[in-house]
Every structure is written in structure tokens, then in C-alpha cells.
């Protein structure tokens, strides 16, 4: 067997895939914790076990993501650019993808993809947590909700509270005081989902987002954020059938194939 492995070390999660001939053979998803190197090593082993392979079957391995450069990884991967892996993974998910938007725990990335599948232009969320998955987590915990429930809670709202603060820290105080002064939690959540979509949309617009659009990253699991984003951009994102958090790891595995 001939495998390539891609591992994406994000702020919240470590994501890994094993691929063979463009096919997904195995996947691993683990919370990054404070020692992402250890977690990545564990993911690497899981991928081998789940594909029934040994280290000898691995033809190439690439690591990408925020912590990839920061930590020493025992399996000695090639380092891959986050943008390159995102474009590659998006093209794998949709052969005609022209734009990819990755909404991660830490950074929002938008990339315009060339016909050949390479990144043409990209924009990042400028080292600020607003618009990121971490923003959603902070808001969820301030409202004592599970971050996974935000889409459902927001969708049930009858109104949308405007969240004026962009800074996560200030927005947290803002929603706590909104809740204390009697605003309905579902309406606040609806506003939170919308405010994230707005932030992400401005970044996507800077690369002139167009069809076909792939939205990925952990926040892509929040269907309300995706719905609002699609409304603001007037683009319907393409559907694909793997976990949206895995796209960059897929791109990494393909980059070393």
C-alpha cells in the first residue's frame, strides 16, 4: 500500500487524514490541548492503524496549520503552507472550486483558486479572534450553551439582536449584559451567528469570492453561519461529503502525493 498523510495542527483541533490515489483512507480528529505535538503524533499513529498500514507504507507526510512550525514533530513531516493546503483540499472537495473560505478556531482564511488549483489571492482575519471559531466558543460559554447548539438555538429565534462589539472580549460583556437586561437567548445567538457571518463575508469579499465556493473549518458546521454567509455573499456554497474540518489536512496529504 502507498499512503500519504496530511496533518493540520489547528488551535482547537488536530486533524489528520491518510490518502491513497486521491481517496480518503482514514481520518483522525483530536482536541489540540496544550501539547499539540503529542496529539499530532497520536493522530499519525491512529491514521496508520485505521488504514491497516505501517510507517513503511507512508510515501509522504505533510503538516500544516498554526502549530506545525511551532512544535517539533517526531514523524518529521514536510511543512506545508496553510493557504496552499486549503486551496488543494477545496479543489479535492469540489473540482470546480474557485474560492475557499476556511473558518477555523483562530483564523479566517479566504483564498481565490486559479484554474490550475493553486492559490491566486488570499486574505486572513488579521490576528483577531473576531469572526473565528474561538469567538463562537466564548459567546456560547457566556450564554452557558454548547457551541454545537448555536445553529439550532439561533435558527429558532424570532428576532436578531445586533452585536455591536467586534472584539470578542467586549462582545462577551455585551451579550452578558444583553441577557441580563432581558434579551432572549435565542435572539442573541441569532445575532452572534450573523455577526460572525458578517466578519467572514468581509474577508471573503476581499478576494472577490465567487462560485464554486467551498466553506470549511469547524465553524462550517454551524449551518446558520453558513446560511447568513451565503446570503450576504449571494453565493450558495457547494456541498461535499467529508467533515469540513478535514479539508486542509486533505490538501496537505495531496500536496505530498
Amino acid at each position, binding site marked *: 500500500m502507498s499512503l500519504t498523510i496530511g496533518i493540520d495542527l489547528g*488551535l482547537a483541533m488536530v486533524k489528520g487524514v491518510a490518502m491513497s490515489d486521491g481517496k480518503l483512507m482514514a481520518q483522525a480528529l483530536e482536541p489540540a490541548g*496544550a*501539547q499539540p505535538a503529542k496529539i499530532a503524533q497520536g493522530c499519525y499513529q491512529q491514521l496508520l492503524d485505521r488504514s491497516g498500514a505501517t510507517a513503511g507504507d507512508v510515501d509522504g507526510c505533510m503538516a500544516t496549520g498554526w502549530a506545525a512550525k*511551532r512544535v517539533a514533530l517526531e514523524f518529521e513531516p514536510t511543512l506545508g503552507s496553510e493557504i496552499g493546503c486549503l486551496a488543494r483540499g477545496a479543489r479535492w472537495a469540489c473540482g470546480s472550486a474557485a474560492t475557499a473560505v476556511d473558518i477555523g478556531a*483562530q483564523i479566517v482564511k479566504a483564498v481565490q483558486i486559479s484554474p490550475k488549483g493553486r492559490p491566486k489571492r488570499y486574505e486572513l482575519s488579521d*490576528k*483577531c*479572534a473576531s469572526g473565528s471559531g*474561538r*469567538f463562537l466558543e*466564548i459567546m456560547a460559554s457566556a450564554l452557558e450553551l454548547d457551541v454545537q447548539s448555536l445553529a439550532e438555538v439561533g435558527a429558532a429565534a424570532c428576532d436578531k439582536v445586533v452585536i455591536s*462589539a*467586534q*472584539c*470578542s*472580549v*467586549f462582545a462577551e*460583556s455585551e451579550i452578558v449584559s444583553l441577557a*441580563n437586561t432581558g434579551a432572549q437567548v435565542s435572539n442573541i445567538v441569532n445575532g452572534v451567528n450573523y455577526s460572525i457571518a458578517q466578519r467572514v463575508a468581509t474577508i471573503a469579499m476581499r478576494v472577490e469570492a465567487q462560485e464554486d465556493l467551498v466553506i470549511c473549518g469547524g465553524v462550517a458546521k454551524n449551518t446558520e453561519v453558513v446560511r447568513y454567509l451565503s446570503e450576504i455573499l449571494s453565493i450558495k456554497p457547494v456541498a461535499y461529503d467529508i467533515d469540513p474540518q478535514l479539508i486542509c489536512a486533505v490538501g496537505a496529504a495531496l500536496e505530498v502525493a
Partner: protein
Amino acid sequence: MITAGVDVGSLSAEAVILSDGALLAAEIIRVRPSPVESSSTVMSRALEVAGLCLDDIDACISTGYGRDNIPFANKSMSEISCHGKGAYWCDASIRTIVDIGGQDCKAITVDENGDLVDFKMNEKCAAGTGRFLEIISKALGVELEALGPLSFQTETPLKIVNRCSVFAEYETLFLLAEGKSIVEIGAGVNEAMAQRAFALAHGLKTDGGFTVTGGVAKNVGVIRSLETLFETEVIKLPVDPQIIGALGAAVLAERLVESQGARE
């Protein structure tokens, strides 16, 4: 003449009472759920210390984030003017004031009368505010008050790369997990904080006496880093640096009384 100033911030509220230019009382409390409640609580404490009642006050000015609709204030004014005036009242050589509060940071310049010349302000992002220090000290497991002195315990502060408070919190946790010392991280946090304030003041004409006000002025590590960055000594104020906004409001209330004539 007896005047008062009340400053309702995002994290704390202060009240100051002046009697013919002398400081009678200055009180600080943690904010209550509503600005009105915060202002009345802190003002009653100040009145109690001064042995006065509300009717003895000739004029009161409110300032700060929660300055509107304070029932006992004759007027509300921006905290920019109040901080300038309050610092100048303490030392007339002061021309530049950096005020670092709970949720904003301001660089203010005043003229030879203590009146506002120019200012810059960050109120959009928690980086460079007291909230930033609160978040990081919590992540470090260090009391907020203990953070400042850490700068004096090491020559090698660590560089905090992230500007965003949320990510700097993560960075702190990672540095701890990597086994870095709390002292070096804490000193790095103080330095990062000072750099934000210094960057904010860029472009202002910062000659003359320099001082720091607001809650963060109590952090000796931030003060030392600011002295290095601004290449000048920080003038130490004779009063608690957190009451400067309320003090300035009380000073400006004197003007209000003068312009309207004494009540009697």
C-alpha cells in the same frame, strides 16, 4: 465651594469630592449592574468619608463610559477632558497622559492650562486595556496586583506575539505548557501592554511632563516599560491613579460653579 466628580467605568466607578481645591474624599468601587447604581453607591461612600450630604455639593460632573443619566450630576463630560484636567491638577507640568482603563486606552495631550489639545483612543479592541491584563493574569494564575512586580524579577521578558487578548491567552497557556517561567511570561505581558499604549500615542506631540492614569497605572512593570519606550520618567501622582477621571470631573465642576455664580 464643594464640588464632586463621578467616573463610571466598565470595571470600576470612582467618586471624588473637592472643597475649595482640596481633596476631601476619593472612593473606588467595582461596578454594579447599572451605571446609576454604581454612581449612587460610590458617591454615598465618598459623602460619608467627607461627612457631607448630597445637598452640600455645589456642582457635580459625571464622566466615563456610564456617565449618562446619573441623577445627581449637573452635567456629563467626556473622560478625555476629565483625565487631562485631573492629571494637570495633580502636577501642572504634565502635558501628556496615557490612561489605561478597563476597556479602553487613551493618549491625551493638554496645554499649559490643562485643557485638551489632542487625543487618540482605542475602544474597539481589548488589546492594550485592563481587560487584557485581567485575562492574562488569570491564565497565568497570578493575582492582577502581583503581575507588575514580575517585570523586576527578570532581565529576559518573553515576547508575546499575539495582539488579540483571546489569542494571547492561548499563547500564555502554551508558554506555560512548554515550561516557560511565569515571571518571564508575566514580564513579557507587561511589556506587550506598554507597547500597545506607546503605539497608540504615536503621532501625538508628547513633550513636557508625562504621566499614566487609570487602573493599569498601578502595574509597576507596565510603568517601567512605558518609561523606556517614551524615554522619559513617569510622573508619580500624589493620589490613586484610578481616581484621576473623577478628580478631573470635580475640578471641571468648580468651573461650572464659577461660570454660573455661587449658589448662595
